[in-house]
């Protein structure tokens, strides 16, 4: 078992270091500055992921299993949750292909859009506003 600080807190410290120390230092080197900015952004994404992803996975497993008329148990570990969702998504894709679903009015479309909103809430929260 790892002691404090936890993963989120360490990432937060790295994020601050990149923002306050490194970004300023690299501002005269365009390539290095860009890589540092990308790295800083990715650290912030990881922080949001640690904070929100597991609950998002649980919600998505619930909703998709209901949409596919399945009774699913929510697995215990994070990795198992992710794998379960991937299995369900493959079933969804099979349905989309077989039934040739293409309408924005279809529940599968609406669910998929919500999946993407959840994804973007972590990877780029401001994207939907732009």
């Amino acid at each position, binding site marked *: 078992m790892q002691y404090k600080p936890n993963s989120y807190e360490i990432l937060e410290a790295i994020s601050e270091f990149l923002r306050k120390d490194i970004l300023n230092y690299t501002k005269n080197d365009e390539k290095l500055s860009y890589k540092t900015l990308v790295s800083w952004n990715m650290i912030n*994404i990881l922080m949001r992921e640690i904070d929100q992803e597991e609950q998002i996975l649980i919600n998505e497993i619930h909703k998709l299993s209901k949409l596919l008329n399945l009774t699913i148990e929510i697995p215990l570990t994070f990795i198992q949750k992710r794998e379960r969702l991937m299995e369900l998504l493959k079933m*969804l*894709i099979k349905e989309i292909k077989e039934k040739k679903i293409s309408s924005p009015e279809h529940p599968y479309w609406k669910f998929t859009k919500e*999946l993407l909103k959840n994804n973007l809430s972590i990877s780029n929260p401001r994207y939907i506003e732009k």
Partner: protein
Amino acid sequence: MKDEFKNSLENWLSEKFKRQCKIVNLNYLSGGACLENILMEIEFSDNQEHLKLVYRSDTGSTLYASLPRDIEFSILEIVHKRGIKTPRPYFLDENKKFFLMEAIPGKSDVRYITKDPSLNSLRPHLVDQLAENLAKIHSISFENEDLDFLLKINNHKYPFHPSQWALEEMKREVENLDEPHPAMYLVLNWLEENLPQNEKICLVHGDFRTGNFMVSEKGLEGILDWEFAHLGNPDEDLSWFCLKDWRFGQYKKEAGGLIERKTFYELYEKYSGRNIDPHSILFWEVMGNLRWAVGTVAQAERHLKGKTKGIELAAIGRRTAEMEYEMMRLIENAI
């Protein structure tokens, strides 16, 4: 560049120019998707005249749709001959691994082109030049040029249906992805139901966007990166230029982050003599977002498979959802 290779290149250039020359300056430039570009300055021994060239070659991690160097060189020769603003091609290596072209002035930096205040009064003129040159590119077709070599690259028979071909290609690409992307399958179904009809077939740049042309205080200096050029529907270029991801933060200026889409399309129509079909544009913009979404997965894979490791490539994989969201939004707004 290692001394041995530099010496051998100098000898080769001297032979090609039929004049003794040496490389006096070298500068590695940021490449196209997977190519190496080196700016080199040569000096001719007879009169100390200087000439700047760009050396362009493969790096070994080519993307699936990237043309071989000899084909790209042939296209460069055709478009340059037609008066399209692009670097003059000089010489192709006999082993077809690299070519030399004119180094043109200006910058391709997107922040400079879309946001720098020094270009504020120039941008309308730049957009006019882009529309004119794009219309010239699209005027190149089987009616006026031997383009058989481009048919052979993709195993096409003329005539063919560009949107159908693009759809089949995307279906194959999406099926090969490791992770499930339901948005891509929904959109593939929509694309299949909305194929444009009576398509014009001509030369298409394939990656016509801000970042792939050089701009100076005088305006457009040249269109770059012909590695994805192919025969296709010209609306593919028109919509790619307007993709949300190529606006670089200038979201209301849909045409390349430079100007409203309507203005750009009106200019293009004036120069091309062709009326743009909004349905076809929608198809190709949705297709463009799908293509780039698949492209972001491929870029991340280059990092994950160790071909070209780097944080920028790794991070791109977390952007796929943006293009997926945008392609669904386009379809929803059209209905």
